[in-house]
């Protein structure tokens, strides 16, 4: 079957305006602006069953319908911060299929009556932002952006905005703060952006991939899209596959595809044909799904089913871990990531991630005790449910599931028993010290 989001893999040079237009590009937008009422656009998206691709999986059409029409102007912001370790899909989309993404953003703007849209890109996407700026200029020249579009009286402008290195700016309210020129620290919610967002005005924020689905939905109809994927999760998802697989990369597949198909049919299997030990379905912030039992791999990947495995599909950044990976090493990685990225605004996350990193570092250096493992677990649980935003929660997922689901890895770490291969490679210096 042909691509819906990663269409550039079917159509060469799709990132050129004329090629994109030759392939039906911006027809949906023109049709919407000239023939549809804004709320009709929202309804189509609602009926398509499209859910947000940024992690939370919130129904997109419903979000759009929450926009506060008593307060103007409205804004739409594309979340292109893509900073979750293991996530690299939005980048490919914006490089390969930029116009479809921008058309989706434009449709969202029309649907909620916004005349300005922003694309918030992580600072590292510097070149990408430059490229997008050129595309936007071309669109303006071609009369797809600007004043009084297609002879009507709808006007629209889209601008890029570069972040500057902060994972937290992917959180929608931190993103808005950053877009307002402030430190990217999350706001108290409620109020939610559709009520109070950018510059205090109603704002819709969606992920790049979410927007990129929209033009196809409007072109082919809600039912067509609903027909793909599962009842719970309609449509296709771009799975970012990484970790210990032979062919890491982005794979666009219908929701409901099994882990096995992704890993073995598409991902070329595990490196050195080792067994899968665990899966992180949503990047560094996800729980560790245990794959003791091979059958787990036959689980269909959709939001509801993955939850039954004690994890979240989130942004579907599938990190594959084989039996050479020791979980204390992994937890050390994730905890240090979150400690580094904590915005520092709220106490449990700021202090907790720092505390956890001290403990896991100690364990990982072989100076830990079994007491430390219990303490680490306890601190992680003390963070849970107390933070201002989800980052704090994220920082505990691998810790808690790692310790609870792979106790032996931590036992090994705090006792001078022989260690798994990769772990030993990583720590030659230290390891020799021990014996």
């Amino acid at each position, binding site marked *: 079957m042909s691509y819906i989001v990663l269409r550039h893999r079917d159509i060469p040079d799709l990132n050129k305006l004329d090629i994109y237009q030759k392939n039906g590009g911006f027809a949906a937008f023109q049709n919407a602006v000239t023939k549809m009422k804004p709320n009709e656009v929202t309804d189509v998206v609602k009926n398509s069953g499209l859910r947000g691709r940024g992690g939370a999986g919130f129904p997109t059409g419903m979000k759009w319908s929450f926009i506060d029409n008593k307060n103007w102007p409205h804004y739409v912001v594309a979340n292109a911060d893509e900073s979750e370790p293991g996530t690299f899909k939005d980048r490919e989309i914006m490089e390969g299929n930029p116009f479809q993404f921008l058309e989706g953003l434009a449709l969202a703007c029309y649907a909620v009556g916004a005349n300005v849209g922003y694309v918030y890109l992580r600072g590292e996407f510097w070149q990408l932002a430059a490229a997008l700026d050129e595309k936007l200029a071309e669109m303006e020249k071609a009369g797809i952006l600007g004043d009084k579009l297609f002879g009507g009286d709808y006007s629209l402008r889209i601008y890029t905005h570069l972040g500057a290195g902060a994972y937290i700016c992917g959180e929608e309210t931190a993103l808005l703060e950053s877009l307002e*020129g402030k430190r990217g620290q999350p706001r108290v919610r409620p109020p939610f952006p559709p009520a109070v967002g950018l510059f205090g005005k109603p704002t819709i924020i969606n992920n790049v991939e979410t927007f990129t689905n929209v033009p196809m939905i409007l072109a082919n109809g809600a039912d067509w899209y609903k027909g793909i994927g599962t009842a719970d999760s309609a449509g296709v998802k771009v799975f970012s596959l990484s970790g210990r697989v032979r062919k890491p990369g982005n794979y666009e597949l219908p929701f409901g595809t099994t882990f096995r198909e992704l890993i073995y049919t598409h991902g070329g299997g595990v490196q050195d044909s080792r067994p899968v030990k665990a899966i992180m379905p949503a990047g560094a912030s996800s729980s560790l799904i245990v794959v003791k039992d091979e059958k787990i791999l036959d689980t269909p990947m959709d939001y509801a089913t993955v939850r039954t495995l004690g994890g979240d599909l989130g942004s579907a950044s599938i*990190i594959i871990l084989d039996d050479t990976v020791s979980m204390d090493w992994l937890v050390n990685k994730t905890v240090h990531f979150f400690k580094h990225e904590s915005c520092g605004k709220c106490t449990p996350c700021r202090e907790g991630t720092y505390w956890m990193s001290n403990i896991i570092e100690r364990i990982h250096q072989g100076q830990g005790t079994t007491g430390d493992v219990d303490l680490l677990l306890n601190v992680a649980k003390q963070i849970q449910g107390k933070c201002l935003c989800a980052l704090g929660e994220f920082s505990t997922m691998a810790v808690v599931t790692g310790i609870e689901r792979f106790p032996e890895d931590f036992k090994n770490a705090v006792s001078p028993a022989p260690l798994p291969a990769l772990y030993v490679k990583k720590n030659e210096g230290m390891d020799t010290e021990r014996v």
Partner: protein
Amino acid sequence: MSLVQKYPKEVKQILSKYPPEHKRSAVMPLLYLAQREEGYLTKAAMQDVAKIVGITETDIAALVGFYTLYHDKKEGKYRMQVCTDLPCALRGAEQFMESLCSKLGIQVGETTADGFVTLEAVTCLAACDKAPMFQTQGPDGIKYHENMNVDRTMELISVLRRSGREVEK
């Protein structure tokens, strides 16, 4: 010479992206602009940007401190920022980093004697499938270098040294 005098076009263009009553939004792009020459933000540059968007120097310093891509100290002309985060580490990023260190004869966070390259370990850059990889932050912006090995990296560095600038892929 002030930013406005030096880059009148760029400044104007940046300001035009945001509602006039929300000039503050322009602060981040302006800081990138101000960081271009020196590779870091001088006090003068910060004051300059503060004036343009109408916030205090303290506000500026608070931003520079929060975002990792702004710098308030002079380092190497090129910052080589290697991703050693989980997914890359699972694909040998840490060994890559180790060997790079020994080749360059510096530790992570240090700068080569000639002040050309500063080696830094950074968190995920959204290129997990193309590890080992790093980005260079230098006079000509930020560029990705993916599926790298030590030799190709040393090659890139010598090219940079010679040409003084990034060569387009």
